[in-house]
């Protein structure tokens, strides 16, 4: 595009005009149809189920909002929301900050980046279920590598093990999540840093700004759209996390690590209380969607993100 801008203003997404109006719809149709089938239909089905009594897979009577009422008055549901909130609001900010710090370090003149990057990214490439087992190996009571060689040896934790302690298990899971996803954040932010224009930094260097001022006044504002999008994605994914918790604690001890995902899984595949589980699914889904669409609109307008 011309820097001078002697084109048609900023008409976005300029397209060859000869395409009939239905042409783009034709292009998106297969994907849209597919998503209707694999996403909308299950969602609508879940809504339908949530208004019925469905125990043991047999859909019985229409019960209106009973399932929702049961759920909303159940301490266990709110406990799960609280657990997930704790999980997300501790894990994501830490991943965010560590990721950003790591990206800033990686963006220095680190040598052998092409070798280091795939290695650093390894945790994020692993199947969550393997990650779960990996940390079981590390942190399992008494025989875990880390439990035995560090926690026990240095008497940091003697009367319990991390996953066995209702007070610690959630933080251990948070730790595992941080371990797994910080590299993802780091590399995404690193890619963002690499794409930043050099000009403002040069100007700031000449203007006499110190590295912290550069970070505060240039890096951070320029990275905001990326931070917003990645932050949102990680937020969603952290809220959805299932495999690692399932394999490591399955919600225990007690209900101390029981997230809505774990609870929904139990309600479905252990208790076979499908109506209520669907209600839970629908609530979570709607809350997510509402949050994300607001975030999307705001981020798109304010930050030019997405």
């Amino acid at each position, binding site marked *: 595009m011309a820097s001078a801008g002697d084109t048609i203003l900023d008409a976005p997404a300029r397209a060859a005009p000869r395409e009939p109006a239905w042409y783009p719809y034709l292009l998106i149709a297969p994907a849209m149809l597919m998503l209707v089938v694999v996403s909308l239909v299950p969602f609508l089905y879940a809504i339908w189920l949530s208004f019925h009594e469905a125990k043991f897979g047999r859909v019985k009577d229409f019960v209106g909002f009973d399932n929702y009422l049961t759920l909303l008055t159940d301490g266990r549901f709110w406990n799960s929301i609280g657990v997930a909130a704790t999980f997300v609001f501790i894990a994501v900010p830490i991943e965010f900050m560590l990721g950003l710090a790591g990206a800033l370090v990686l963006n220095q003149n680190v040598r052998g980046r092409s070798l280091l990057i795939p290695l650093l990214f390894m945790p994020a490439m692993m199947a969550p279920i393997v990650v779960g087992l990996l940390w079981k190996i590390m942190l399992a009571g008494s025989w875990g590598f880390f439990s035995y060689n560090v926690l026990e040896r240095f008497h940091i934790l003697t009367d319990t093990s991390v996953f066995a302690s209702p007070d610690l298990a959630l933080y251990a899971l948070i730790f595992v999540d941080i371990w797994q996803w910080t590299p993802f954040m780091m590399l995404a932010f690193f890619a963002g840093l690499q794409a930043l224009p050099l000009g403002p930094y*040069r100007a700031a260097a000449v203007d*006499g700004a110190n590295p912290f001022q550069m970070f505060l*006044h240039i890096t951070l504002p320029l990275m905001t759209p990326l931070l917003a999008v990645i932050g949102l994605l990680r937020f969603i994914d952290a809220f959805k996390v299932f495999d690692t918790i399932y394999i490591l604690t399955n919600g225990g001890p007690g209900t101390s690590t029981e997230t809505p995902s774990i609870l929904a899984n139990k309600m479905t595949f252990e208790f076979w209380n499908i109506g209520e589980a669907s209600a839970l699914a629908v609530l979570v889904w709607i809350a997510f969607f509402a949050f994300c669409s607001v975030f999307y609109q705001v981020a798109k307008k304010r930050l030019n993100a997405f």
Partner: protein
Amino acid sequence: MSSIAFQSVFKRYGAVDAVKHLDLACAAGEMLALLGPSGCGKSTTLKMAAGIEQVSSGEIWFGERPVSRLAPGARNIAMVFEDYALYPQMTVWENVAFPLKVRGMAGQPAAARVGEVLQLLGLRQMADQSVRGLSGGAMQRVSIGRALVRDPEVILFDEPLSHLDADQKVQLRAEIKRLQKLRQVTSILVTHDQTEAIAMADRVAVMNHGVLQQVGAPQDLYERPANLFVANFIGEPPMNLMKAAWDGPRVVGEGWAVTLPAARRAKLSDGAIVAGIRPEHVRLLPPGTAGDAQGVVSYREPRGDADVLTVVLDDAGGVKGGRMVAEIPGPAAFRAGDRVSVGLDVGRLLVFDAASQTNLEAAS
């Protein structure tokens, strides 16, 4: 204000010398242009002055102060960038205020300074706009404002006009020159555009392949280029540079010949030469008029107040006629295909040594 001096400065990237043995000085309050084609080392030189690039060897002096080991921020310089390098998320005001802010200057004095600079550059009305939506010219003015706001010792301009539209270019180059003269701030301007260099700078340093070719006042460079590179690089349309040979006092080219005054000829050594003459020193006369050559207009390029005509010279003395470009006041009467007689302003004819490519008459 302090002077700037480059003393035996080298810049190496691996095995490549981007700047070779540069000795160059810019007097206090002067504007010096570094001119040359892309890749000639001029930008590298400027960046070394700014501290964005490190010198490989040699020293840079600001007045009595060696600065080549100082961080950019410690040199008390300001820089205007080709791509403006504005802080994209800030307003015009914030951009201009930034150098003060990072130096801890705030409050009323800072605001007054910023206001004054914005006023000077005609940016007052835009103060609260985001710089993202501004035109190129306005962005570059903001960038200049940012450079001026804290009275730097030196301002470094890196291709400040190259992304601007022609009309904005003309307007801004006059403004920059005026501000520079008014404030008497030592400045280095890097440009590949000779018009800009000549129009704005007190002196111009021409570089090629990392080597300084000539430094001097624009007029010197224009009238007395030290070598073929400078002769060709400066002037538009470019100087006619033509193979020629001596025939006693006569310079004989391809289809043309002139006689130099004996006194002048005496000072010039023999050998293969290249003769140079600027298009505006080539006169076109009606055919049949006595001239230094005869030919046919092959192409006419009207430019309003001037016309640039290419003439294909007739063969003469068994030598195939060459081409010669003439710039004459326009609109001219000649059209492509017209026969013309060509007159050369012998006093303006330059003679270069074909081998060394240097101007035989340049003060060495």
